[in-house]
């Protein structure tokens, strides 16, 4: 599904190239659950952003579902990730002025899906996540874990084939974190959604089936998870 070839990313800072990623090559197949790990500032988030087409690599090529992303124009790229990628953020990034229901509905509006179908898909998700009672609340009225559930529901509503999650449990207590991680595993196993998550926690990484370790912009290790939780 994802082919990264010699990806490099640097920020020019006062004439010196400040490398974030160097010669990163990796391939992720459909149905995998990959955890990207590493110390702070290693380039994990940048890698995720490149995967999510929010940032462009300075060098290297990126093929997503067989298409070369790096030579694509913005419109096509937006088209791609509208249909195939869902994002989950550490800080949830829900829109404060919208209710739970409206937040989940938002991506469908941009996909130009008709109102009736939008309603049924949102209702379906609310039901699945046991949030029907909370659909008219605003994000500020929910706990962190509940907010992240809404964030995941929003990522799922467009029926993506890939979910990119940047420390999805970073702001949560461990009990809530475990709940979110098992939800991810369930989605990966039962619905075959490819998941790439960035995480600091060894424990969370065990929910996936592969771990990429990045240090100083370079992929150090690429190991399968032995005993999946």
């Amino acid at each position, binding site marked *: 599904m994802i082919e990264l070839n010699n990806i490099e990313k640097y920020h020019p800072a006062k004439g010196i190239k400040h490398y974030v990623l160097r010669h990163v090559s990796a391939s992720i197949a459909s149905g995998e659950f990959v955890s990207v790990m590493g110390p702070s500032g290693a380039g994990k988030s940048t890698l995720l952003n490149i995967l999510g087409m929010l*940032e462009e690599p300075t060098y290297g090529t990126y093929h997503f579902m067989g298409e070369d992303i790096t030579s694509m124009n913005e419109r096509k790229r*937006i088209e791609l990730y*509208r249909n195939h990628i869902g994002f989950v953020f550490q*800080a949830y990034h829900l829109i404060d002025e919208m209710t739970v229901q409206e937040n989940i509905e938002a991506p469908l509006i*941009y*996909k130009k899906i008709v109102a009736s179908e939008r309603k049924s898909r949102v209702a379906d998700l609310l039901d699945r996540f046991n949030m029907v009672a909370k659909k008219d609340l605003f994000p500020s009225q929910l706990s962190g874990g509940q907010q992240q559930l809404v964030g995941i529901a929003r990522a799922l509503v467009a029926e993506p084939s890939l979910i990119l999650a940047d420390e999805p449990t970073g702001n949560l207590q461990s009990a809530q974190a475990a709940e979110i991680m098992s939800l991810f595993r369930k989605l990966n196993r039962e619905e075959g959604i490819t998941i790439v998550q960035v995480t600091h926690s060894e424990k969370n990484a065990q929910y996936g089936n592969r771990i990429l370790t990045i240090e100083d912009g370079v992929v150090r290790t690429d190991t399968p998870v032995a005993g999946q939780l």
Partner: protein
Amino acid sequence: MFKLNLKIALRNLWRNKGYTAINILGLSVGMACCLLIFLFIRYQTSFDNNFANASRIFRVVSTWEYPEGIFRSKGTPRPLPPAMREDIKEFEKVAAVQHSSAILKVNLPDGSEKLKVNRAIFFAEPELFEIFNFNWLKGNPSVLNTPNTVVLTDTVARTFFGSAEQAIGQSVIMNQGQPLRVAGVLANMQPNSSFPLNIVVSYKTYRDPNMQSWGSVTSASECYVLLKPGVHPASLQAPISRFLKKYYDGTAPGKEGHLLQPLADLHYNADYGNLAGQIMPRNELYGLAVIGIFLILTACINFVNMATAQAVGRSKEVGIRKVMGSRRKELIVQFLTETLAISVLSLLLACVLAEMALPGLNSLFRENLSFSLFSHPVIFVFMVGLVLLVSFLAGFYPALVISGFSPALAIKNKISQAASGGMGLRRVLVVVQFAITIVLIIGTIVILEQMRYVRNQPLGFDTQAVALVSVPNDSLSRPRFANLRDRITKIPGVTEVSLCDAPPSSMNNNQSSFSYNSTRDETFQINVKFADEHYQRAFGLKLAAGRFLARRDITAEYVVNETLLKKLNVREPADALGKYIVCQGVKAPIVGVVRDFNNMTLRETISPLLLCSRAASYELLAVKMEGKAIMQAMPQVEKTWNEVLPEYVYSSSFMDEQIANYYESERVTGTLFKVFAGVIMFISFIGLFGLISYVATQRTRELAIRKVLGASTAELVQLLNRSFIVMVCCANLVAWPLAYLFVTRWLSQFNYRIELTVWPFALAMLVSITVTLATVTLRSYRAAKTNAIDALKYE
């Protein structure tokens, strides 16, 4: 404390350079306009207010009541002043003034001519100078008791004789042969005076055949009175009605009346006019003042919007200050200091802008305003007042909001938009601002459209390439008219020359009572124009029946217009031919009917009209030329004129220029509206830009999320713009009825006016929406284009 506040205020302003610039720009433009409007209003209200007895000085004016309305004149019958002096004991002084013009000649000591000019002169009784305390440099009012004396102002004395000293005792020759002795010199008249008494001739010099006639009134003979101290003008009704009974027999069609017009009304009352010919109706001054208030209001609204929008950013500072022990009052003072600093900076910029715009204003109003703080300290007072008012209007509400934050929440940066005055108030303010702008846009469109309509309105006669050359009419010049006309007709390019008293459309109209085919006077008056047989061709008038006047020097036949026949209920123009009209004591048959043409300005309707010949009344030579020949022909006309009438002074104008002059006040109003609509639009839109910048910054995170969820740039721009478009539409709805009221009232003063259609309103809406979209998109596009990652990274 104040110094510290000021320092912090200036630092804060510097930190938010963009917002500060928007605030200062908007405020200073608004203030500059206010300042100019104030200068103008101050100048206009300063007229005639520096006379010692101002509150006791009145002008006697005349009215005639006709069935169709009241006719007014600032003139009085010539025998009125002496009669009033005799009969009405409540008057301390009564003085007659006669406005006239004369050819004045000054000779060198050796008898040769030094200069010859045509100047406005005033025949005045010495009492005039006892009523008005003009400053005499040489001589005193009593010199005007002798016939053939003249008093000059300093400037005129200098031009004529070199200096005031040299002028005394010299002689000025009036109208070829009447020597006047210079007996006094007055200080120069102020420009803000309704009394341009530059050349005053003793009233005893004045001769007129109607000296004793109560029935003949010209607006040039004015009468001023000084009431005895303690006399209330209202108490004079009884003596005046006794006076009217004594001198008028009540047989004239219009019922005569006389009123006392206070001196303070002279400059403002358009019903009467004044000697200086400068009128500024109070309504127009009020209109300007309202526009000034609108301007300051829009600028203040900008300020309030920006300040409350920024309030959230200041909340942490407020919290910390409160925790440190600052009281709310001190915080309010601090924020007001900031506003004050902005206002003062804006005022400085405003002064520069006003100074730059002043020449433009002066040429628009043909006045000479000056922006001088030292000669008019009231300007300084106004500026201080303006700064305080703006600081208070613009600063108080935001200060109240910001200082009201709860410290615990503020420190944790948890002040939400709702607590900081909220979008609601800002929306209302923006709608108000836009409503004002839209009213002005609609007003401007309608005024310009009406002016264009008036200019293109067929007048019913030819105005192009017609020169109006004045001719003197006295026993010496009259016999030379025929020669003059013949010689001018022969000039190449001149197609027709006509002698007349006035062009078809004129401000000077001669109204008279008349009878049609009976001995009884009709209930309405008729406009009489004197013209020779060439008048029809010179102005391209069309005949509806009969023929035009034949060659005569006295009135022997009449030509009338269609309106007269309509008013007399004569259906067929031909039916009127041969019927007799008696007007001004002359009975003569109607020989022709002309098609209607506008005989007054387009504010008035066409009135019934009578054309007849009378050489004794001709004052103009209407010279019709080929359009291309004007440049060559005019110098020749002047040369010929000077050869035929060497002892007189030549002057001329063009018909189309004269017509343009009728609409001078509309031109000024139109320009003012254009300028002020532009300025208000500018202020509103920079305010809008400030607001959208703020909103865009506020919503950066939301935009980034939406972008990640798949929104395209266009969708995001649309999202940001939508609420502004809604506001502008609301503003349009508010503005339309107001604008409708305003423009229908303004249009109602014109008899020939445009149909008020929907399109000025639609156009205003289109303009406001387009400009809003452009302004908002400029900023929202940038916001929508920013990289989503930058906004989401540091959460």
